[in-house]
């Protein structure tokens, strides 16, 4: 009884948050999945919709637009995650041994994190304007100035690799953050460990390869999780740069049009479910792993 009296007040104090999370996170996720399994394709009707199982989940693959948006999300994810990871790592690598005015460099690389994708999208849409030749503005014009006209292309309007261009602003926005993560990781490697490896006859490169890089694995994993889940739900950036154009459609913008233009709740919920599942498959194992690790330490 006394033990209960010891922890009950704490539970009571947290209970409002527990209820809110239970309802708004888990309850609404469940509601969304349930809605995705109905034929409620019309939001005006008062009827709740009939249960149709996984029909929506399979049916959507026959839609050309869905296939396109999935393809776009994959291209975007590969370029964005790879680009931000490499650039972030490289910046940290350049800075890790200490450099003059380090805090100044960090402030510059990190400032895009404080600004919204909507605001930066405005300038990136201008930079990645698809006009070429006489009418070229933005980066295409810059290429013309420096005599690299052959580099001019359609950017995000390119039918094949437009989404690779869309990843550029995202890399610009996020790589400073990844740099900060890696920098902390680099600095977490004890100097004695490096020194020991050197004493054992390791070259500077060998020290990196065998001592530093293995110790960066946890940071790399965190960075991958962060970038991956941002990438799969990307929305603001795409809307800001190109609006609702099919040429840059991703699942999140497709869902938006399904809800507000096609007025089809079941379809919107189906797309939303796919977005959640694509993130959950790697975040859930990560969180469980993280919780176990926390217990051990």
């Amino acid at each position, binding site marked *: 009884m006394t033990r209960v009296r010891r*922890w009950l*007040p*704490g*539970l009571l104090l*947290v209970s*409002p*948050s527990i209820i*809110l*999370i239970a309802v*708004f996170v888990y309850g*609404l*996720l469940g*509601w969304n999945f349930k809605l995705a399994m109905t034929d409620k394709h019309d939001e005006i009707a008062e009827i709740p919709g009939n249960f149709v199982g996984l029909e929506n989940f399979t049916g959507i693959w026959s839609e050309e637009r869905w296939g396109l948006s999935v393809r776009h999300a994959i291209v975007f994810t590969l370029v964005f995650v790879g680009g931000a990871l490499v650039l972030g790592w490289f910046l940290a690598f*350049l800075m890790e*041994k200490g*450099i003059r005015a380090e805090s100044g*460099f960090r*402030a510059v*690389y*990190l*400032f895009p*994190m*404080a*600004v*919204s994708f*909507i*605001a930066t999208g*405005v*300038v990136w849409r*201008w930079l990645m304007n698809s006009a070429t030749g006489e*009418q070229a503005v*933005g980066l295409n*014009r810059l290429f013309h100035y420096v005599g690299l006209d052959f580099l001019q292309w359609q950017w995000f309007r390119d039918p094949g690799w437009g989404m690779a261009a869309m990843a550029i602003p995202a890399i610009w926005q996020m790589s*400073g*953050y990844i740099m*900060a*993560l890696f920098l*902390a990781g680099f*600095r*977490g490697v004890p100097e004695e460990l490096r020194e020991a490896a*050197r004493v054992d006859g390791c070259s500077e490169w060998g020290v990196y390869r065998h001592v530093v890089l293995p110790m960066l694995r946890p940071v790399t994993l965190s960075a991958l*999780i*962060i970038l991956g*889940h941002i990438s799969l739900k990307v*929305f*603001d950036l795409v*809307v800001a740069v190109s609006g609702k154009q099919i040429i840059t459609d991703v*699942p999140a913008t497709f869902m938006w049009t399904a809800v507000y233009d096609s007025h089809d709740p079941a379809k919107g919920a189906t*797309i939303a*479910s796919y*977005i*959640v599942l694509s*993130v*959950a498959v790697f*975040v859930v194992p990560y*969180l*469980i792993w*993280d*919780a176990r690790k926390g*217990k051990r330490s």
Partner: protein
Amino acid sequence: MTAHVAEKAPRTAPAAPARDKGRAGKWVRLVLLLLFVLVFLIPVYVLLVTSFKPLTEADPTQAWNLPKVWTTEAWSVAWEKLEPGIVNSFLLAVPGSLISAALGALNGYVLSKWRFPGADVLFTLFLFGMFIPYQGVMIPLVQLMVNVGDTLGVQLYGGIPGLVLAHVVYGIPICTLIFRNYYVTIPDELIEASRVDGAGMLRTLWSIVLPVSGPAFAVVIIWQFTSMWNDFLFAVFLTGPSSWPTTVMLNNIAGAVTTPYSQQMAAAILASIPTMIIYVLLGRFFMRGLMAGALKG
């Protein structure tokens, strides 16, 4: 999670080892870093330069030039169009971040110092709420707000209170995480001593824990303010024209083909000023929020 890394990172770089290949390497790194600074600042240059151009200089051939005549014309038009959104954003982000901090402090305190059975599992369940793509709850959330609003006779959907509610609820995980990680560093003996003296849970919170919580409050308030200010997804699903925050208004201004570039860019800068000021003045706390688990998009 990443907070552990951050805490370990020393503020200054370890002294470069004597056998470091020396000055040449250092200069190469410095030059590379400076080049990246230039690349990172290209969008800033474009934003500033374009926003001060008169309409007569909108010609593509002058795209990268400094304005011949500097004018604040575009700024005043942009301000006029954006002002209601900026007011709404403050009405959203100020109360929202304060409520978030209060909830986060309570949860973090209990989950670190006044634990109950299952607290760890609960915390992991909370953390999942940080990673879910909010698309997965959006359609039911709109429905829930409409229903609850109708039942209680208040307007939740479409207004700012509803948007505050959404941000506060989905901010609980990150705020709890930051406070919990901060409170873990307070020695348990301090809490125990207070208990022995007969102080209850709330009394201990008030007189022992809160007085030293300043930094955690700063981190959480800054973090939540920034994410609420920069959010687009919740705003576009949950608000109507009279309560649109800055991001939605900016997107409408910039998305209209009739808006000249100068006004778009001025509006984008205006929309970013509050969070940029925070970043410049309180970057330290902003960074800590990022490292603590900006594991949220």
